[in-house]
């Protein structure tokens, strides 16, 4: 004979009342597991995304006043104006054109006697040609410099606007003022802002033409000297005066411009010395120059910049070997090509594969200029992306200025190498990024979400405790006759409390189990259908989340429910129930 008051009888016969409670609790537990798992996933994905820092230290230039392009740009613009004036002078009175005209005007008889006149004619024509070209080059060059300057100042205004909005998020006036002031400018300049690399090609073109002009002018000087010497041997030859003074002035103006433009292209001062010095630090495995860049990827907790290492070909192979990664499909980028090889998780998160394209042309948050073709998919324990150093430094002005180093310590020497590097850098305009720093940043980011999540879990637990406690009480009142009778016929109060405790415990444990089971099912599905295809990391069987993080819900619900019902049972007077006439 079975015990009629057994727990099984209670649950089975009261399933209409028990199941909704189990359902509510299970749903809450499911919710907690899902939010906690997503949060854990955000953290794990962030760790995986920046996992390459676990084995290397990135030495990156700090943004300083020297690093700011504004100064060399302004200087270059002044120099350019000087050169423009000098080019105009070359073409003006006493310049190349008038000299050329004078030489051409020499009598044909004389020109036949003096071959050097013909040479002067050719060189003067060349000089005129290059001067015209240079004049043409300088217009877009000046325009590009102005645009870069304005873009830089716009960045400062924008930073200031962001700061104002951060301080007073409810005050839209700064935003409105900014848009009113900059609307026209934004419309005219922003579409071109992605093509700032043209500045460098304009500089190269102008330099080539300036070199041509200089060569022509030198030849012209030499020829005019020859002509003068020859002319002196002929009586009454009206040899025109050479424009050597104007040419000399132009040369010095051009030299100043060339030097100024050169300073725009220079990387951070001291990088070469740092490269050599860091390679000598004991415990350093290898050091590589790095024109690093970034890809915009989604980490669930928000977008993040995935670091790309701009290294030479041996460096790419060294990095892959360092992490135990391999090229699973395709190949590594070729030298001096806009190509990229990237980990498959990152490729998935950006929905690209071999033949796909990445870069600022496609995603304005990519700090990878223009467009790069994906040529390799990397597979292995660490997520990594590599791009060619030479392509980055030879094609992109800004990237040239933001070169850094990748310093790889030997295993176990990370802290020593870090400390030595830090000491070496001192107050220079470099900064170190290593795993402890990156991890602290990630943790700080997740910490806020963690706090929100904890608050929500506490809120859910409190609300659920109240709701289920209330349901318990209602259910208990419906069973008052049962408890009154049992107390009257000889069941002690503590026996009744124990009975109710087992009943409540069974419900909460069942709900806990159902909730966790449902959570595993939902997370498995979500992981397969969304997380993995997007390159996100999720541990479905994180028992810390599944058990420990959800424990407060059944525990609180049980304790709260039992405390209210237990209190009533302790004060239970069977006679008051027996005597009720309802």
């Amino acid at each position, binding site marked *: *004979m079975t015990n009629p008051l057994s727990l099984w009888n209670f649950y089975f016969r009261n399933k209409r009342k028990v199941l909704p409670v189990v359902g509510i609790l299970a749903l809450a537990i499911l919710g907690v597991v899902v939010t906690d798992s997503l949060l854990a996933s955000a953290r794990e994905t962030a760790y995986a995304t920046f996992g390459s820092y676990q084995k290397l230290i990135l030495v990156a230039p700090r943004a300083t006043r020297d690093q700011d392009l504004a100064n060399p740009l302004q200087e270059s613009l002044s120099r350019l104006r000087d050169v423009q004036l000098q080019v105009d002078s070359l073409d003006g009175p006493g310049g190349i054109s008038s000299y050329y005209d004078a030489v051409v005007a020499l009598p044909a008889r004389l020109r036949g006697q003096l071959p050097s006149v013909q040479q002067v004619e050719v060189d003067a024509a060349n000089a005129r040609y290059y001067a015209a070209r240079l004049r043409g080059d300088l217009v877009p060059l000046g325009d590009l410099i102005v645009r870069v300057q304005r873009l830089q100042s716009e960045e400062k205004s924008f930073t200031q606007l962001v700061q104002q909005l951060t301080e007073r998020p409810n005050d839209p006036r700064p935003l409105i003022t900014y848009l009113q002031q900059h609307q026209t400018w934004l419309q005219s300049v922003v579409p071109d802002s992605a093509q700032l690399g043209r500045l460098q090609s304009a500089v190269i073109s102008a330099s080539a033409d300036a070199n041509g002009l200089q060569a022509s002018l030198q030849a012209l000087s030499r020829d005019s000297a020859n002509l003068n010497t020859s002319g002196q041997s002929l009586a009454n030859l009206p040899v025109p005066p050479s424009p050597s003074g104007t040419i000399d002035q132009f040369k010095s103006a051009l030299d100043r411009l060339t030097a100024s433009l050169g300073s725009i292209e220079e990387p951070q001062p001291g990088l070469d010395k740092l490269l050599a010095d860091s390679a000598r630090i004991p415990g350093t495995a290898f050091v590589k120059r790095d024109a690093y860049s970034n890809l915009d990827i989604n980490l669930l907790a928000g977008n993040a910049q995935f670091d790309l290492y701009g290294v030479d070909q041996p460096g790419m192979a060294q990095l892959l070997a360092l992490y135990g990664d391999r090229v699973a499909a395709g190949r590594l980028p070729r030298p001096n090509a806009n190509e990229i090889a990237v980990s498959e998780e990152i490729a998935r998160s950006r929905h690209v594969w071999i033949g796909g394209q990445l870069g600022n042309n496609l995603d304005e948050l990519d700090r990878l200029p223009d467009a790069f073709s994906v040529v390799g998919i990397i597979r292995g324990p660490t997520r990594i992306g590599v791009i060619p150093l030479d392509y980055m430094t030879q094609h992109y002005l800004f990237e040239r200025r933001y070169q850094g180093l990748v310093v790889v310590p030997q295993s176990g020497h990370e802290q020593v190498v870090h400390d030595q590097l830090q000491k070496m850098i001192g107050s220079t305009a470099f900064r170190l990024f290593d795993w402890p720093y990156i991890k602290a940043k990630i943790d700080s980011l997740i910490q806020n979400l963690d706090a929100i999540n904890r608050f929500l879990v506490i809120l859910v637990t409190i609300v659920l405790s109240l709701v289920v406690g209330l349901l318990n009480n209602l259910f208990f009142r419906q069973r008052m006759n049962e408890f009154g009778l049992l107390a009257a*016929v000889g069941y002690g109060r503590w026996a009744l409390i124990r009975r109710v405790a087992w009943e409540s415990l069974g419900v909460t444990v069942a709900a806990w189990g159902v909730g966790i089971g449902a959570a595993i099912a939902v997370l498995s599905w979500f992981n397969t259908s969304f997380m993995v295809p997007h390159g996100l990391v999720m541990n479905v069987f994180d028992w810390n989340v599944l058990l420990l993080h959800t424990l407060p819900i059944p525990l609180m619900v049980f304790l709260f429910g039992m405390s209210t019902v237990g209190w009533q049972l302790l004060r239970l007077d069977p006679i008051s129930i027996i005597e009720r006439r309802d």
Partner: protein
Amino acid sequence: MLAAQDLVLDYRSGTAIAHAVDTVSLRVERGSFIGLIGPSGSGKSSLMYLLSGLKRPTGGAVTFDGHDYRELSAARLIRLRRQHFGFVFQQHFLVNYLSAIENVTVGALRRNHDTAAYAQELLRRVGLGDKLQKRPYQLSIGERQRVAVARALVHRPAVVFADEPTASLDQATGHEVVSLLAEYRQAGGGSVVVVTHDPAMLTGADRVLQMRDGRLN
């Protein structure tokens, strides 16, 4: 076996004291059928609560088989009630989610084959042999009360206390219920104490005690 000596039960309300039971002495012999009658508020139910140990008296003593309730701890008194007494109340107090047979075995001390057989036998005896698996809401009020009687008898108690067992029943059904208790007594099961305000229900009683204002007349 069950004896009460100078039992007093007072209810205090502020400075006022109401004597629900006022210096009552009586003995319930083994196998006897005692009827307690009286108007509402006369103290008959209170006397039954004192005799069954459901309430502690303000004064006086109750003994059962030589055990003075005053000397028993709450736990022992509860155990005594569970082992030796059976109860039938005005309401049936059946557990809604249990069948008739299961409700009967709620009162059992041991749950074995014999008890199950005896529970079935009791239900057959009270005319519910074909309704063993019915739930309380599937039974009439009279049938529910008969299940409550079977529950009170299933552990073969020494004394069955019935407090207004027929109050919510029609007369014929009420007679059936009381006669079930009388049968138990006649079969040598134990004593029966029936509290009622209807003297017609006590035709088979050995003694009928009348209460008024907390005293036995």
